[in-house]
């Protein structure tokens, strides 16, 4: 897997346009979905993903195969997303989302409070309400299917933090989706 990555990266560096397009085709869909949900806007997502791939193209010379090419690309993407969100927060003067939702009341009902079939539309809306870090971990884990180990690499956090962020996200979603 890694040699294939290095090969593709080498071909891209060498100016092989087909190789870079291959890279794009392999990852664009999932990345686009991820970005749309991270930053909450399809138009912005287009712009952002464009920047990501342009930067990826420039930075491919620095790819050493330390991680999988996909992971590298995801890391680039998530960094852009988080930067975008931070900048947007500053622009909108919004109070920083507190991560202290932990321990905020969870329903102690003895029965499930979330519908068995969660409406995808409701879920999409609920995801938007998550704090940035928790949303990132949740999207990578529950939506995209990455393991905590991979998420740690992508987000530059520890595996333990990844787990707790996903937990936090799920608990918050549970509160939001409760009927």
């Amino acid at each position, binding site marked *: 897997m890694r040699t294939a990555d290095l090969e593709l990266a080498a071909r891209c560096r060498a*100016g092989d*346009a087909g190789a*870079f*397009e291959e890279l*794009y085709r392999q990852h*664009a*869909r*999932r990345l*686009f*979905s991820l970005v*749309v*949900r991270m930053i*909450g*806007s*399809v*138009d912005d*997502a*287009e*712009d952002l*993903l*464009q920047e990501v*791939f*342009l*930067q990826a*193209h*420039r930075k491919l010379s620095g790819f050493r195969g330390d991680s999988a090419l996909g992971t590298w690309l995801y890391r680039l993407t998530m960094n852009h997303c988080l930067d975008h969100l931070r900048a947007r927060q500053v622009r909108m003067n919004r109070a920083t989302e507190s991560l202290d939702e932990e321990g905020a009341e*969870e329903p*102690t*009902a*003895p*029965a*499930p*409070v*979330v*519908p*068995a*079939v*969660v*409406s*995808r*539309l*409701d*879920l*999409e*809306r609920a995801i938007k309400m998550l704090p940035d870090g928790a949303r990132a971990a*949740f999207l990578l884990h*529950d*939506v995209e*299917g990455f393991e905590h180990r991979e998420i740690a690499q992508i987000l530059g956090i520890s595996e333990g933090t990844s*787990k707790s962020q*996903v*937990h936090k996200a*799920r*608990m918050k*979603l*549970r509160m939001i*989706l409760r009927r």
Partner: protein
Amino acid sequence: MNCELHDDLLDDYVDGVRATDHRSDERFAAFERHLAGCIRCQALVADLTSIRVAASTLDEHIPPPRLWATIASSIEEQQRQPWWQRQLGGAFSAWVPTAVAASIALLLVAGGWNVWQQRRVETSQQGGAPQPREAVPAEQHYEQAIAGLQELANAQNAALDPETRTVLTKNFAVIDRAIDESRAALAQEPASTLAQESLLDALETKVALLQDTVALASDTGGGPDEAAAAVKELNQ
């Protein structure tokens, strides 16, 4: 209840881990025993599982084909620049948002073919909880694009034949009416996501039609000019 002791394992359980797996962790087996008799944890597991399952089946947002076209042409452009300029990255957009600018570029260059625009899943949301009017940034986005495109279209107005111009004018009026109605509705009910979405939809339609208009005008170019005079004469 000793629920808190096991909270960290609960997510693993939701992820599908079971004590019967390679995991020889006694804590996990203990958790499963606890779960068997704890309705609070059972409820929690059920809820989080519903969420996880729903998340794993979320729709893909498909990037429009123009995205690759934009990236490819930017890269090409970058490669034509001297290396020191390349490092600065340079954005395309001036007065028009990148996505729209790319569309215009594509339309003018590729001769007016309409580019597939995959719709967003998110904008068909309608919820009980009122959303703040966050449509504002998007709305400004569109207004900017519209202003720029309108300028272009006006400059090229003479290039279109009168019948086409009439049809386009009529349809712009239809779209403007939709925009006005949506705005009026939004003024009445600022929290209505439906009104927001109607507005954004109508704005998007206007942008698309303006793009087409601009492309049309540049398409219907002339033929050899020497003969043009002759044609004019023969047309009398």
